[in-house]
């Protein structure tokens, strides 16, 4: 009993149940819409695990949302809802792209430089939202939403400028090849590489994708965030403010400064995400967009599926990326509309929201046992 209830209390239990429920709901909807759910889900799994390159692609897709998820999770630890991750991502991508176009150094300098540019731009943009909150008490949700739109239009404006715009496309020039984080970008285009890829199906399969070193940087940044949060005195401060800002204030912590710093770091993560996308993914350029791509908003889902844990974002980011990617094969192979995938992801997040019910059930079970024990004791004593 005790073992069972303490298992139920583990946060991961709720998350796993939530994910299963999400799949279950999707299966029901698929069945209602006249698709064979088993066939559909197996097509989806096939599209996720079927070939090594599928997994490589999922990692590529997960890279940016792991970071935006971490950005949201980090800010949430301090009680801030970083809905502005989308804008920070856009700024990060834009700064990274402009740097990558104008500067051409060796990869060892170029890549860090582009990453730094992206992080700096994201951090500044995040700090702006933090500053608006600290200084003028403007709710970060409002400023975040506004700054997202501003970022989008600003990015379109820059993308359209003659200096950066690649003629006959909807985007900028690509960044210099030295800024690519894909493996052996120059070699890949050669005849020799083509032969190599033919001869080594496994490696070739992966090399043909956008598989890139970004994931390593992303994981490093996630670990760094987690380290900062839980191992440093700065992190202690942030968590204290997030958990009870009044007590933190009374203990001499400068709450406003912390708000700005947190938003700045959250922006840095989202900006890094944008930079990694530019360095790692074709076409290595910023495109004009008419609607948000959703990397920041998906970060919200990733963070919540991860239960607000930065490290959890690595896994939930992969899950989310896998669902989106695998969902496309569901659509392609079975012909089921992609909305099903969105419904599935939504249901998972919904059940994640409900997951707190599970420890409550555990409590109820223990409560019943304790009450019974008490009554039994009394009866035993009186008889």
């Amino acid at each position: 009993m005790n073992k069972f209830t303490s298992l139920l209390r583990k946060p991961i239990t709720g998350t796993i149940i939530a994910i299963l429920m999400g799949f279950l709901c999707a299966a029901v909807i698929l069945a209602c819409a006249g698709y064979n759910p088993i066939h559909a889900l197996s097509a989806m799994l096939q599209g996720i695990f079927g070939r090594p390159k599928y997994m490589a692609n999922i990692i590529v897709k997960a890279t940016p949302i792991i970071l935006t998820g971490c950005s949201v999770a980090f800010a949430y630890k301090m009680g801030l809802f970083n809905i502005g991750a989308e804008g920070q991502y856009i700024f990060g991508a834009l700064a990274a792209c402009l740097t990558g176009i104008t500067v051409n150094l060796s990869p060892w300098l170029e890549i860090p430089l582009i990453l730094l540019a992206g992080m700096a731009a994201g951090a500044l943009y995040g700090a702006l939202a933090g500053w608006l909150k600290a200084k003028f008490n403007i709710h970060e949700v409002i400023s975040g939403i506004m700054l997202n739109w501003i970022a989008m239009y600003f990015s379109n404006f820059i993308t359209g400028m003659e200096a950066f715009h690649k003629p006959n496309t909807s985007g900028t020039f690509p960044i210099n090849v030295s800024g690519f984080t894909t493996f052996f970008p120059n070699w890949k285009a050669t005849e020799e590489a083509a032969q190599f890829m033919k001869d080594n199906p496994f490696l070739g399969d992966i090399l043909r994708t956008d598989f890139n070193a970004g994931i390593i940087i992303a994981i490093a940044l996630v670990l760094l965030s987690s380290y900062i949060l839980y191992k440093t005195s700065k992190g202690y401060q942030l968590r204290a403010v997030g958990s009870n800002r009044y007590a933190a204030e009374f203990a001499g912590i400068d709450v406003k400064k912390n708000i700005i710093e947190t938003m700045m770091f959250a922006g840095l993560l989202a900006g890094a995400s944008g930079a990694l996308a530019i360095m790692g993914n074709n076409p290595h350029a910023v495109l004009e967009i008419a609607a948000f791509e959703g990397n920041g908003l998906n970060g919200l889902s990733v963070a919540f599926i991860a239960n607000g844990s930065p490290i959890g974002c690595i896994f939930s980011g992969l899950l989310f990326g896998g669902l989106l990617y695998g969902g496309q094969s569901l659509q392609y192979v079975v012909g089921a509309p992609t909305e099903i995938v969105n419904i599935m992801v939504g249901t998972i997040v919904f059940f994640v929201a409900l997951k707190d019910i599970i420890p409550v059930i555990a409590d109820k079970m223990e409560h019943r046992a304790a009450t019974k024990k008490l009554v039994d004791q009394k009866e035993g004593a009186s008889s």
Partner: protein
Amino acid sequence: MNTFTLLIGVALMYATPMVLAALGGVISERAGVTNIGIEGMMTIGAFTGAAVGYFTNNPWLGVLAAGLAGGLTAILHALASITFKADQTVSGVAINLIGPALALFFCRLCFDGSAVTEPVNAKLPKLFGDNATGILANLNVDFMVIIAILATVIMWIVLYKTKWGLRIRAVGENPAAADTLGINVEFVRYVCVIISGILAGMGGAAVTLSIVSQFSQTSIAGQGYMALAAVIFGSWLPHGAFLACILFGLAQALVVVLGGGAVSVPSEILAMLPYVMTIIILIFFAGKSRAPKANGQPYIKGKR
């Protein structure tokens, strides 16, 4: 004069869906339930309104059905955040994922695989009839605008002049106190969240039944989030939210009026105007607004 009336007309058109949705946000948050899911509820309403309007050839039925559908979606949110004491933000985010997907899913089911509904023939009537010209044409708003204004007034009266309003506000400020006085906190919250969904759904229908006459997957593209901002901007007051939406509508109208003319501002830069303006206005007016104290917190009996 022409420009001025155009400004007003455009502002009202822009604001109407947001006003309704924002009122939904106000009532829900006044009762202590954060509603990030407005965008999703709007999308469901936008689709249902257009679909029912098309099939029945009666736009009013469309508006009603949209409200109903929004309300049904809101039950999901209510279930999660009231009955199951879930994190209201997470549940709202989930609604925003599920809502648009469901709307599109049903759209494809009902319209032969198309992601766009057929145009509604019978449209909502206009304030000055169908043949207004000149200045009247600029101001010839449809009845959704009137509904939005009425809804604002009614919500203000309900919240501040009736016993239900007193109870709603009490539940949003101090649910434990309301509970000890025999007020059913969960019931009040359910009602408010469902009303919130109904209003958001009608807000969606305001797009697909009055601004245009069909639903497409981009009909609702951020209006729900803007409404959310308006709730906070308007200090959780019905009239505050209304004014915030109108202000935003005016800013958008300004973009339209200023654009295309002799002013040689790039249109991307001009497009930022409403958002920049909002932030600047907030810099001068924010800080005073205060959220309902229990907003976002599930009420758990006996929790200290």
